[in-house]
């Protein structure tokens, strides 16, 4: 994959991914893990985990780190630029017509269909990613995954804190318990 192809791929993904946050994950995964085999699922997890440890939009962080992983620092910068260009272009044009656009019946209708589609894509991504993550340390990973899911769903503890706690827990568990004894 050339730098230009990489740039264009991220540009395309950023231009079509509505809903913000994690919605970019299944699309990036499909492009770089499933279709092109440039990353493994485990590497994908690491990129998302690292994206979480920085402030700012997750989509931008994930694009940056995917670029870094595949193409070094130039790739990281190109990934960032490719991720911010579509919103920059779209919003600066829409700025002048936004009232009629955001309230438009057909825009709303298309969006309702798209959000339904993205919901389905997200559920499949969760299934695929969970399977990938449960390939080793099944009990350890399964419990952490379920626990994080429940805490995220039912409490308002900030993502930053959850990430910090998970990282610390990983360090403690694998420092004090021999690796082969972790189920």
């Amino acid at each position, binding site marked *: 994959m050339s730098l230009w192809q990489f740039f264009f791929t991220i540009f395309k993904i950023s231009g079509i991914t509505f809903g913000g946050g994690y919605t970019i994950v299944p699309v990036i995964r499909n492009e770089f893990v499933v279709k092109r085999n440039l990353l493994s699922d*485990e590497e994908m997890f690491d990129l998302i*985990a690292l994206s979480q440890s920085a402030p700012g939009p997750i989509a931008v962080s994930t694009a940056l780190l995917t670029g870094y992983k595949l193409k070094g620092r130039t790739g990281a910068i190109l990934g960032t630029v490719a991720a911010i260009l579509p919103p920059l272009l779209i919003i600066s044009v829409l700025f002048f017509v936004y009232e009629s656009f955001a309230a438009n019946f057909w825009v709303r209708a298309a969006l309702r269909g798209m959000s339904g589609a993205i919901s389905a894509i997200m559920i499949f991504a969760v299934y695929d990613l969970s399977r990938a993550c449960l390939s080793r340390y099944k009990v350890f990973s399964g419990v952490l995954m379920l626990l994080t899911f429940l805490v995220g769903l039912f409490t308002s503890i900030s993502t930053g804190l959850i990430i910090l706690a998970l990282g610390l827990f990983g360090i403690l568990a*694998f420092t004090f318990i021999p690796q082969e004894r972790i189920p």
Partner: protein
Amino acid sequence: MIFWQLFIAFLEVGALAFGGGYAALPLIEQVVVNRYHWLSLREMTDVVAISQVTPGPIALNAATFVGTRVAGIPGAIIASVAAVLPQTLLLLFLGWFLFHGGRITLIDRALKGLRPGVGGLIGVAAVSMVMASLFTSTAPLAIDFVAVAAFVIVVVLLLKKLDPIKLIAIGAGIGLLGGLVEHLIGA
């Protein structure tokens, strides 16, 4: 100078907005509406509405909108760059450790805890996405039939391994079709 103010303001938003998505909203509002008075509260709600119908993170959409309002297209560019600058610098630094620093045992162990957690967090995002898109209200329970139709059709197509980007476009088509039907029957 206005460019410098824009830069500083969105640098702060970019540096402090953890968690992504709507988590950044109160921070943006505080800086843009209360401190600098670049937007009224009403215009801030418009920014949220536009963000819902356009791709891209809300922080970047707000940066572009406010930048254009205050200082034209150069303002939009400066505000957007400022909004992503903190994470860019931090991740270039962290990425260097992850990709070039060899295998650092500590990071390796932290990642073993983080990977399953990230799976759980994406699960939370999926659930809230489903709730927000398939139901127009939760009490009383009301279903958005157009979104549900798109959801079901896309599930079937996903089982056939279709590309997500194409599926999002198909979702838009189903939405327009559903809108047309509703328009015709006057629902």
